[in-house]
């Protein structure tokens, strides 16, 4: 067992963990933070993407001990006082999720992209999300959602509007 101290979504934890314990299992099984799901065992799907010290990582390829001393943000730590982030709003407004299983990872990966490149083009968004698989949406609405944030088009008023019938 190894001792770790880690801050997750703003809360500090001290724990004893097996060295082989994956960060995603630590979050889910030990801390009960089940907002981050697991979609594969080969690091291909990206469903478990979280932020570790400000960069997105697939938490199935990081050991919990590697997060020692670090700061982790999951999708559960994004909303502040019930206010969704712009990306969360954009995913909702652009119907960028169906079953929602890939959504936490998509949102975390998109945050990383927008930090690096606040004004990406459509191809850049597609490229940046290559490591996050979705089986429901065909990606188009996910790309739209990310572009909407980049272009500042997530006006809160649009949320209940009926003029969202989008055909290209």
């Amino acid at each position: 067992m190894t001792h770790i101290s880690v801050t997750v979504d703003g809360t500090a934890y001290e724990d004893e963990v097996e060295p082989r314990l994956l960060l995603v299992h630590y979050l889910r099984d030990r801390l009960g933070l089940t907002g981050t799901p697991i979609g594969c065992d080969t690091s291909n799907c990206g469903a478990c993407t979280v932020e570790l010290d400000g960069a997105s990582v697939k938490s199935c390829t990081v050991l919990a001990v590697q997060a020692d001393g670090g700061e982790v943000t999951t999708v559960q730590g994004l909303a502040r006082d019930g206010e969704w982030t712009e990306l969360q709003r954009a995913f909702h407004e652009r119907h960028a999720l169906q079953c929602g299983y890939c959504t936490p990872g998509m949102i975390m990966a998109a945050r990383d992209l927008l930090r690096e490149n606040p004004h990406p083009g459509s191809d850049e968004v597609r490229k940046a999300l290559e490591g996050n698989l979705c089986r429901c949406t065909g990606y188009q609405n996910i790309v739209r959602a990310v572009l909407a944030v980049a272009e500042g088009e997530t006006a809160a008023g649009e949320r209940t509007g009926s003029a969202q019938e989008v055909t290209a």
Partner: protein
Amino acid sequence: MTDQAVEREVGRARLRKEDARLITGQTNWTDNITVTGLLHLAVLRSPMAHARIEHIDVSPALERPGVVAAFSGRDLAGGLGSLPCAWPVTEDMVLPDHPPVAVDEVRHAGDPVAVVVARDRYAAADALEAVEVDYEPLPPVLDLEEALADDSPLVHADKGTNRAYVWPLRTGEDFEAVKQRADIVLHRRYRQQRLIPNAMEPRAVVVTPLAASGEFTVYSATQIPHILRIMLSVVTGVPEHKLRVIAPDVGGGFGSKLQVYGEEAIAVEVARRLGRPVKWTESRSEGYLATHHGRGMIQDIEIAATREGRLLGLKVDLIADMGAYLMLVTPGIPILGAFMYPGIYKMDSYEFNCTGVFTTRTPTDAYRGAGRPEATYAIERAMDELAAEVGLDPVEVRRRNWIRHEEFPYASIAGLTYDSGNYEAATEKALALFGYDDLRAEQQQRNERGDGVRLGIGVSTYTEMCGLAPSRVLRDLRYSAGGWEAASIRMLPTGKVEVVTGTSPHGQGHVTCWSQIAADVLGVPFEDVEVLHGDTLAAPQGMDTYGSRSLVVGGSAVHRAAEKVVDKARKVAAHLLEASEDDLEFKGGVFSVKGSPEARRTIQEVAFETFTSHDVPDGMEPTLNSEYLLDPENFSYPHGTHLCAVEVDTETGQTRIRSYVCVDDVGRVINPVIVEGQVHGGLAQGIAQALYEEAVYDAEGNLVSGTMADYLVPSAADLPDFVTDRTETPAVSNPLGAKGVGEAGTIASTPAVVNAIVDALRPLGVHDVRMPCTPERVWEAVRSAQARSARKEASA
């Protein structure tokens, strides 16, 4: 937009009620569920495609830390029956025994041989290594045609054959006679590669037992909580009324969770034996072996036609890979396709013959579209071949053969009644959006220049059958259940509304759409409606979600149940207003007396009055609740036209989709945002079959594409932007006019893409490319066509 149109919910682009939980991570996936005392179950699987279990000893696993129990197939056999098949398509179908854990013999790589139960998931996985198994290898059965030979090794030796069934359909004139009078007879062979459905959420099950009363709660990542409850009762012997099945948040299904899986039954049995709650969650690579696959067919298709390109007859010989066992609806999947091979076309003769074959591979079953994509692929590829043969544009050949708008309702040659459709309108709209003529002109120029990168244009005009299914039709097809769907409406004392649906969504947005339907009929705000589903306690009756049936059948049931509430409320309102029911108007949720609008009651007020029951009509039950079980009159028939332009590099074999346009007619649209989303997702899966995905086995029957690293699920970078549009020809057989949308994109897109690739390469002498059309296969097709033409020149 008129005021009235704004008031209406149906047709409005409502954003989803479902999203709030999902985008904040407050989800209830099965693997998230935990209870005190929970044990973790892990499954040891066969590393071989076919072998006899000579010896198995699970006891060494018990020595491992954290392990609580371990069981072999023989240990569990007493408590568990065979896994069910609900679709014996013929009277003499061969139905092998299917133990949830193999007892004497394993029949595909991944067949379970033992289970271990431990205090945490790592300990359970570790302990699997300690189980001792000696296998005596048996010959694998992999090739569908060789499997039918008399001297083939057998998947189920006791059955004496690998042929599961033969299912024929013959209608219209004799096909041989039609061939005699045809100018052209084309014979083509197409292959539907095996696909792995890949719902993003792996399967999972949690079972909590209540020993004192013999009750079990089963949480499962399933599309079918209601069917699962019945079938688990049969397999485990737990009485149905002691089983509660809950499908919590379910992360996609695409047919792969329309199943009763061994692990669900095993978890019940283990929980029963240990008196402890048990969880099993599959890993992705485990799922590739253990979750059913889709497609897997060889299609021999023959068409007879005139020189003018008019179809006279169609004959289909299908060999369908069942895999090692018949699961819930395995045998019926190709049969669903039987009715769809004629597509949107008129013809005088149709002959269909399907042979189901056992192989030593993971069982097949429903995958998005289930039988209908395969049928559409074959007929739409063949129509392009006919066009090439008679020298017509592929769109023109379709025009010459399709059922015209004025001919609906139309009795299709396969025995269906297409209730409504307008193929001309969808096609014209699609051609205009696509810029068809300009692209053809560009194609011609590029061909004349002899460009290394060829432009190809693919068309697919499809119809499908949704709204599975009228119960009497299911009887005729020997399917062991009805096709009705249930809905209940509870108007609560405060005027809020609970809709209880028997459908079980996993991403399709039922909560939002059902709210729209109920809000419109009841005249209450969208926000005042809650939808309950996916729990046999909260929603005791249902037939669940698959085959694009939910809106057509389940949504219609909600509509009818809401009408029943209004009828009842009208009686109470008439009583309260001292008016006759006939004198009442109901609009926007308000009952008012005709001619005296001040005499009015809102439906919410009526709900409260009914709840107090202080002053209701004599003999009236004191609730505004209703229940409606709707059995559909007919299938529904979405249709549409899909157009794809590809650029194919003849040097590298690389295909790039340049543009993709589709115009689908899914009848009346409840929510256009959700419709568009469903089309996008469907397109991605259909395009993936055309270009990327295939379950590949080696000569020993090992799944080579056994992980997500080896099986190409397309990413955002692999897919284009789609242009989607609609025509709207309402269905006439349900009160909503809806037709179903979930599978349309998948059904139509695969042939559109492959037709485009072949169209690009046809001037080079290519007539077909086998799916998935990987760069290697395309390159091979170009090279062998060049070699053929060189040989021809040399011999000339």
